[in-house]
């Protein structure tokens, strides 16, 4: 099993309340699989994705990626995990506003030392970004920004791509184009993909679908 999540728990505490978001989630993913994670708003999909991506820490349970336990990693090791192993694509694109498209695209790959200019060029070409390389994020449309985010993630050659509603901010036509490109590239590169989505249409295009409800996998 490439990704193995076991009895994962996450809650948020305030002085007065304790809100359990994940209540013992368990599931596994084989290498190269693409899986949809669906569920109602607020059921904990994004939280689960963030925990797998090393962006947050769980309160209990285990997450193993390619055999490595990441649930109890410290801040530095989790940063390394995000840099080396995982690529995250957000709904809000999360481009670096001060860098142009070219630098954004190269950023993570150069950060983890796996940057290949030819591969990056082919990604840019396939995603229709060649004419926008010198532009800055605020000069691009939403669809273009999300393509840059996808290109950046894949250019870093991660083992696992986590996508949090990657087309949630796009219109239907653009969303469809972007998704097609993402799935095509994932298949071609053989990377494992976990996509958080509300869309049944997207879920249908992936290998498997997981449904999260009230903090548990159904």
């Amino acid at each position, binding site marked *: 099993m490439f990704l193995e999540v076991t009895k994962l728990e996450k809650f948020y505490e305030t002085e007065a309340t304790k809100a359990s978001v994940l209540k013992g989630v368990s599931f596994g993913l084989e290498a190269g699989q693409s899986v949809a994670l669906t569920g109602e708003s607020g059921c904990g999909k994004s939280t689960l994705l963030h925990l797998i991506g090393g962006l947050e820490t769980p309160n209990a349970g285990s997450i193993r990626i390619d055999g490595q336990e990441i649930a109890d990693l410290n801040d*530095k090791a989790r940063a390394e995990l995000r840099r080396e192993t995982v690529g995250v694509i957000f709904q809000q694109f*999360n481009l670096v506003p001060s860098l142009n498209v070219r630098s954004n695209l190269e950023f993570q790959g150069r950060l983890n030392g796996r940057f290949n200019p030819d591969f990056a060029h082919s990604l840019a070409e396939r995603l229709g970004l060649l004419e926008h390389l010198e532009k800055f994020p605020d000069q691009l449309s939403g669809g273009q920004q999300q393509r840059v985010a996808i290109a950046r993630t894949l250019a870093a050659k991660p083992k696992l791509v986590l996508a949090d509603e990657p087309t949630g901010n796009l219109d239907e036509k653009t969303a469809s184009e972007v998704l097609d490109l993402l799935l095509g590239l994932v298949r071609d590169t053989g990377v494992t993909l976990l996509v958080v989505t509300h869309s049944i249409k997207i879920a249908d295009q992936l290998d498997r679908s997981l449904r999260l409800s009230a903090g548990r996998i159904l």
Partner: protein
Amino acid sequence: MKRTVISALLSHWLKNPLQTLALLGGLALATALWSGVQAINAEARQSYQRAANTVTEGDFAQVRGEVTVKDFVLLRRAGVLVSPIVEGGLNGVRIVGVDVLTSPRLSAIPETEIGAIYGPTLFGQAQALDQLGPMPEFRKTAVEGAPPNTVYGDISVVSDLLKRGDAIDRLIVLKDQPRGAVAPEVLGYTVTPPQAGTDLASLTDSFHLNLSAFGLLSFAVGIFIVHSAIGLAFEQRRPMIRTLRAVGVPLKMLMRLMVLELVILAAIAGAIGVLLGYFVAASLLPNVAATLRGLYGATIAGALTLSPIWWLGGVFVSIFGALLASLSVLLKLWQMPVLAIAQARNWQSKGIARKLQLSGLIVCILLAIGVLLFGEGLVAGFILLGALLIGASFLLPIYLSAALSIGQRLSRRVLAEWFWADTKQQASGLALALSALLLAMAANVGVATMVSSFRVTFVEFLDQRLAPELYIHVDSEDQADRTLSFVEPVVDAVLPLVYQDTFVSGVPTEIYGAKDHQTYPDNWKLLEGVDDPWGQVARGAVLVNEQFARRTDQWTEDKIEIEGRMFSIAGVYGDYGNPIGQIVMTQSVFGELYPTIRPLRFGLRLDPEKVPNVAEALRQFGLADDQIINQAAIKKLSKDIFEQTFVVTDALNVLTLAVAGFAILMSLLTLANMRLPQLAPIWALGLTRDKLAKLEVLRAVLFAAITSLAALPLGLVLAWVLLAVVNVEAFGWKLPMYLFPYDYLKLVIEALLAAVLASLIPAWRLKKTSPSQMLKVFANER
């Protein structure tokens, strides 16, 4: 409706305590420095006013030279109203003995107390009387209107106190003389006019102008903070303002209420500021008094008495500053369509800002060139300073952008590339705070260079002018003859010091007669001169000081008329700290011009090791302690005074830098929240919050370092203007400019340290930002 709107507006400040602190703190600090400096100035001016109203014996013409009781009797018999004076010093206090029966009315001795003077009584300010120490045999009467550091008593009482016997020092010539009275000059006496050329108010005006410029600069730095706080508040309140407009609040009312809101906040900040200003002034005033005493001999009181107008003025300045700082924001709001208000600033507005900066820069450059070519006077000097400083703050964003672009281009690693690009993006948000730092540092460099150049020049000048190892002064020609015949065999040379106050080319001038001796060519550095100037002086030419040369525009090889004779100027020497003109000629020529004046002061050249023995021998011979002055002691005293001098400017330097540091801190704190969307992606891509926080500190240091690089040359230009333009206009002499790399390095380190301190809190907050806060950036929840 008004109440609802204003409570909505004020709710922003309650919800954003940091911005409120930046606004109130900026205004309060600006007002504090401004009103503090004004308080010092006002207090000093009041002291001068009190001094100006004080009548002293110096306000009358005086018969000088070898004057005895016989001369007094002779002149009185000739119908001339003169009054004898005895003068000396005790415990650092000047003691003047007057004859109340013949003396004009002096401020130090109240009419009602005249009868008590034979008491024996001493009159003077309480501080001067205290300084004399315990004197049980005298009654001490404190007189508020007495001149500072001077004590008056009856001539017989003072003569006894100073052990002067029947000797008198000079005679006051009363202003209203009886008809038919002969002039003392007719009887062969030398009469010096009332003290001239020592107008304290005009001399110290320059010092106060410097202080005011400092206060204004500090205020400008504070206004930068306020402008920044108001700008940010406006940016953040755009949606609220749009909503208010959308629900039907009229634009005029909204504008009026926003102005009212600012006035309320500024009045609160102003009140805090004047209170702080009071403490700034109270803590600096003793040093100001020391500085003025050291520089000009002007004594001001060491305590504050402030009028209600000062307090109100401070609050008014705060309100004015706040309105000035918010002018652009209010204008923007006035011109903006309702729906555009909620949109964030776009590239176009950045372009407009850049154009405005360039236009401002060009205006400042033209103004500076205009003033350099055509300007005259102190005001022109300060306009030049203003143009330089404001022009530099316009240039700063352009310079920062260029410097950061170079850094970006030179960077090879991806993180470095991002760091430079991100820093460049952040520069516009910090531009105002960095302008504040630039101004503060440039002023620091400028004033430090000026003060230190002054110090170096003055110390060198002391070494030149105080070449003789011992100085002695005697009371009479007889004593002079006896002392000289005793001392000449035991020293290498005796240099008589003889001078006369007069007017030359219409300006008050001291004429000195100098012995033809190698001491002068060996020690005196001339600013300009003919070949072998001292040889020329020996052949009948004269040397003039810079003040005389500038005031009369007579320089080397020009001819001047002194007492009806023409003299050629062989050179010009620097004469720092002297307010009036001075001319040096040989003793023999001096003797021809002023035959009645005999030297009573002498400089003695001898082996420095022999100084204690010779001084002791002179004491044994009969000279009193205060008649023998060790050159080393004078130098030490002068240098000690100089150490005290300008302490106030040093303190203001530190304060201004602190205000600039506060500006950076407030800008970083207010920007921190807006920074999260820029930093969260980098964190998500694999950088720890700890590393990002460290990079934030590094960024602040980089900003301070780049700003320092600009501040150094700007400060040096500022120093040049202060030394070569302002100083010449204010004092009448030009100071040589020296560079002090160690001081500049220290200042840069201080600025970097201020930047580190200012960035620590925002960096710490970033480090402690929870991942869930970071993740909100991607979830559109912010």
